């Protein structure tokens, strides 16, 4: 007999976890889902964000979330540079996305190894007043180290969503995914818009990284575990749809949490694939529609 309270516990923990996964997947939803740039290295950038946060936290005593936000301009710049390079070397040459995939895989690998060389292969963690405390929700004890990332992630996704819906640039970003030639006929350069959007997507990695290191200690190779999850969330969510991606992330989080609690935590990384493969094979338009 399964204890209902244990199930509720696992579900609430799963929702929190899923909210965080959405923060990682957000950058991929923009880069891959909207701009069609298969940025495999995004999870590695997230880990880089976690390490940068760790530096600011341990040296200056900054709150990790504040540190993550402060780092966004740096990551924005990094994203613009990466996109420009990708554009010049692959997109403009009309090279298939496949060469580009290998490029991003290389970046993923380089970032990971560079982090090992700079910071070592040890686990790092941050200090903040809310890490270690917890609060009661629906009669379930939720640790704040899960709750804070969940809330920050939702706020970040909602803000970007509003930005895309309400501003001129946001609409241009949506349009660039739909018809680049038409956008040029409006006098808007697609490359500039894409560089900006890719920069924003990469900037989310510093915040997602801060959230990651709040949740658990981080070492350079953990990024790989998130590739499957983040891409599964984006594909399941219907490529580029924010709410679809969030919904899929939470489903993923709940499933992982249930499996970890009821069965064995070491299976958790495989679950994303369990979702991804059938979706790709049988329902490639994702669980939900496409509208942002």
């Amino acid at each position, binding site marked *: 007999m399964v204890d209902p309270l244990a199930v509720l516990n696992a579900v609430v923990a799963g929702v929190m976890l899923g909210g965080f996964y959405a923060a990682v997947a957000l950058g991929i939803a923009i880069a891959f889902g909207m701009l069609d740039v298969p940025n495999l290295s995004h999870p590695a950038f997230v880990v880089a964000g976690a390490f940068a946060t760790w530096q600011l936290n341990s040296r200056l005593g900054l709150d990790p979330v504040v540190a993550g936000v402060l780092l966004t301009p740096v990551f924005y710049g990094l994203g613009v540079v990466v996109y420009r390079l990708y554009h010049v070397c692959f997109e403009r040459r009309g090279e298939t996305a496949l060469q580009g995939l290998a490029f991003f895989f290389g970046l993923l690998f380089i970032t990971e190894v560079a982090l090992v060389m700079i910071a070592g292969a040890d686990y790092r963690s941050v200090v903040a007043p809310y890490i270690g405390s917890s609060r009661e929700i629906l009669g379930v004890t939720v640790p704040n180290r899960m709750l804070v990332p969940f809330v920050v992630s939702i706020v970040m996704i909602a803000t970007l969503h509003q930005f895309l819906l309400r501003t*001129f640039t946001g609409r241009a970003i*949506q349009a660039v995914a739909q*018809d680049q030639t038409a956008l040029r*006929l*409006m*006098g808007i350069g697609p490359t500039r818009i894409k560089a900006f959007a890719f920069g924003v997507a990469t900037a989310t990695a510093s915040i997602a990284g801060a959230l990651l290191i709040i949740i658990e200690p981080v070492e350079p190779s953990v990024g790989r575990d998130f590739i499957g999850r983040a891409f599964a969330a984006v594909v399941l969510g219907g490529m580029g749809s924010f709410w679809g991606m969030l919904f899929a992330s939470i489903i993923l989080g709940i499933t992982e949490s249930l499996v970890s609690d009821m069965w064995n935590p070491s299976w958790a990384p495989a679950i994303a694939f369990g979702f991804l493969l059938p979706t790709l094979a049988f329902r490639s338009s994702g669980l939900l529609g496409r509208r942002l």
Partner: protein
Amino acid sequence: MSSLAITGLSAAYGKVRVISGLSMEVRSGETVALLGTNGNGKSTVMRCIMGLLTPVAGSIVATIDGTSHELAGRTTEEIVSLGIALVPEGRRLFPRLTVEENLTLGAARRLARKVLPRNMEFCYEAFPRLKERRGQLAGSMSGGEQQMLALGRALMTEPRILLIDEPSVGLAPLLVKRTIEKIKELKDERQLTVLMAEQNFHQALTIADRGYVIVHGEIVFAGNSADELNDNELIQRFYMGL
């Protein structure tokens, strides 16, 4: 005072030559029809003017409000910001954006952004249907409504010269007539210079001042008036089925 002069234009896709040594002009305030059936290079001429395709040879000079600009070699974005707009073949709306969002994106250039509210109002007055459907996704509209939106969106860029590629394609005969009449109306109200590519000779000639007939990428006949084109024996035989 805006006009367009094309001299000796040649264009190719890869090694396939599509246009060779084409010359034509659109004088200020005129509506000129570029007539021809599918695959004769009408769209390619449009693409060259807009900088979507770089010509192999030749020059395209646009005179906007008295200043001349060579267009060959410029980017599409630059050409649009000079005041030239294209309603592309197949309309190419942003299907997953709403009608209003599509229109807003038309007003990207600084000049157009300043007059955005006025132009939006103008579009809604010219096409009341668009106002009714302002919150609807562009992709979910009928062909006629989409053509209206495409025209409206091009007008939002505040053009002096308007290029229209195959406005009649995919529309029911009654709608074709109405669309063509609408183009004439818009042209008069906005004092535009219009170049329209069409394969529907009948309809195009109801509003065109002059016309060129293009076959295999070359101008085979230049009619100085709609009547001259209507009376041309070749056209009657091959294109109008008379």
